[in-house]
């Protein structure tokens, strides 16, 4: 209960942050050349000034900026994100359609990076300064320096064009009209390359942190005690070291949630996945500012939710945290 209250308090504290972001970006977008009505007029193939004025009045764009901001925030409270003139439907439903691929991609990449980060980090830390450690550290440095979009393109060249093992893009095979398990498998096949591409840089970060935190914990007194008790090395690592060494890793998930969402913009564009990231890119290119603002709101919300989840996991891993709070 205590954990929940603590995490709940942190969640409540993030509401002003969210408001600050929205107000900031809303005011920023006022400087953008052209507004929704301009975009709509362009979409309609032009129109006279009277129509434009009429439309501006209809969407409340003739009001002063503080009044518009007030209107926007009041609509947000009712979960109304406005109307996308490009897609011809409410922004909320456009975003909702695009959310599942992104969440799937982020979860898959995070699991991939987290799992292999632990495995490689542990291997490296167990044989510190021997060749597996050196090899893993060098690979980590190279992965960290690899631009994700470039890795994605090269993966397409190798696995889709030459070997033809995996599809080069898209979320699923639209022509096949599959259902049930076959559809799931098909989507999984489409997500292999994007997951690797997005996860690579995080794998590099996680394995480095895991190695460092393993090395730190391995030197603590209680580990020596566990060894002195006669436990074998595997037992010591799994039962005693891992749990404590995991703490910085979990913190990192919260810190990296935003970076990962940002990375999905690029990865979804490379693999033409119909996700939130690609929507962000499209709305910039098409000057669909309402949608862009909606994406800002939803992505900030996602980061806050991930951090809330991290707080809960953290308190579970380390009981001292909730006791102190």
């Amino acid at each position: 209960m205590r954990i929940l209250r603590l995490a709940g308090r942190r969640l409540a504290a993030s509401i002003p942050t969210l408001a600050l972001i929205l107000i900031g970006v809303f005011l920023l977008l006022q400087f953008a050349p052209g507004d929704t009505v301009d975009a709509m007029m362009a979409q309609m193939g032009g129109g006279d000034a009277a129509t434009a004025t009429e439309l501006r009045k209809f969407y409340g764009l003739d009001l002063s900026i503080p009044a518009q901001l007030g209107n926007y925030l009041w609509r947000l409270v009712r979960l109304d994100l406005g109307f996308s003139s490009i897609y011809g439907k409410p922004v909320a439903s456009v975003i909702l359609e695009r959310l599942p691929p992104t969440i799937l991609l982020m979860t898959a990449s995070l699991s991939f990076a987290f799992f292999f980060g632990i495995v490689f980090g542990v291997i490296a830390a167990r044989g510190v300064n021997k060749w597996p450690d050196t090899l893993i550290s060098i690979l980590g440095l190279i992965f960290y320096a690899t631009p994700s979009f470039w890795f994605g393109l090269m993966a397409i060249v190798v696995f889709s064009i030459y070997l033809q093992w995996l599809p080069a893009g898209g979320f699923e095979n639209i022509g096949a009209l599959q259902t049930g398990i076959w559809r799931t498998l098909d989507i999984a096949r489409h997500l292999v390359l994007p997951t690797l591409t997005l996860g690579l840089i995080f794998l590099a970060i996680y394995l480095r942190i895991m190695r460092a935190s393993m090395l730190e914990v391995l030197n603590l007194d209680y580990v020596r005690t566990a060894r002195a008790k006669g436990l074998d090395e595997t037992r010591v690592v799994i039962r005693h070291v891992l749990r404590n060494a995991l703490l910085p890793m979990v913190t990192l998930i919260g810190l990296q949630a935003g970076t990962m969402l940002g990375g999905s913009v690029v990865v979804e564009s490379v693999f033409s996945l119909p996700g939130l990231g690609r929507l962000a890119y499209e709305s910039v290119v098409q000057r669909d500012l309402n949608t862009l603002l909606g994406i800002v709101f939803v992505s900030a919300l996602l980061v806050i939710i991930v951090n809330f989840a991290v707080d809960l996991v953290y308190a579970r891993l380390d009981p001292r945290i909730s006791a102190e709070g």
Partner: protein
Amino acid sequence: MDAVKRYFRSPAAVTGLVLLLFVVAMALSASWFYPREPLALAGRPLIWPFSNPRFLLGTDNSGRDIAAQILYGARISLLIGGVATLIAIAIGILIGAFAGYYGGWVDTVLMRITEAFQTLPNFVLLLVLVAVFGSTLTTVTIAVGVVSWPAPARLTRAEFLSLRNREFVQAGRTLGMKDIQLILGEILPNALPPIIVYASVIMAVAILLESALAFLRLSDPNVASWGNLIGLGRDVLRVQWYVSAIPGIAILVTVLAVSLVGQGLNDALNPRLKGR
């Protein structure tokens, strides 16, 4: 001097320095090797690398020399990376110093703003900034700097928090020094080393951010940038994959060099932490 010696004892740090010097040399020698405009048409399009001695690395989809674009691209990457890092560090130090030194409500307000910037994914903010201010070299550089300052701000704040009540600062205060003198003259020089080391991380990320933006064709199209070339090569990826492959390796080498140098500096300046 000890730090310099320690730096050169680490093979990784030396490798990083050599790579970085190589990239800098590429940037400096660009106009000497290729006096002509790198984005001008040079020959037949899509010549494979090493097949024509005139175009060592081949030509791209529209017949522009890839080698020339790689050399000039080094300038752009280092320029954007360097200037954006300076901007990020400057904003970060300003905000972190005030928050850490004054504490109280100043700290609360500034940290709330920092938190807001950290909650919004920085690439999304970058997209918003580019959508609003356009994508020229200047605006992109400033935008990359503006999205990168929260981390150095937090770092500066932490340093200031631990330094502001040390004896040498209190001594300065007793001497009647003004706040600004204490911040700039006394605390900042002591807080600077970890921030300078962290600058390498910011620079690496800044180069990657700009190249991603250029790949999406949202950066300045009128300069020879590695990200632009990768984006261009995407159209001919099926057969002429080298157009995208070559500039990607250039980005990889540059970012690797910057991070190795940063890590080497860190180990050299904090010898006790080495191996962590």
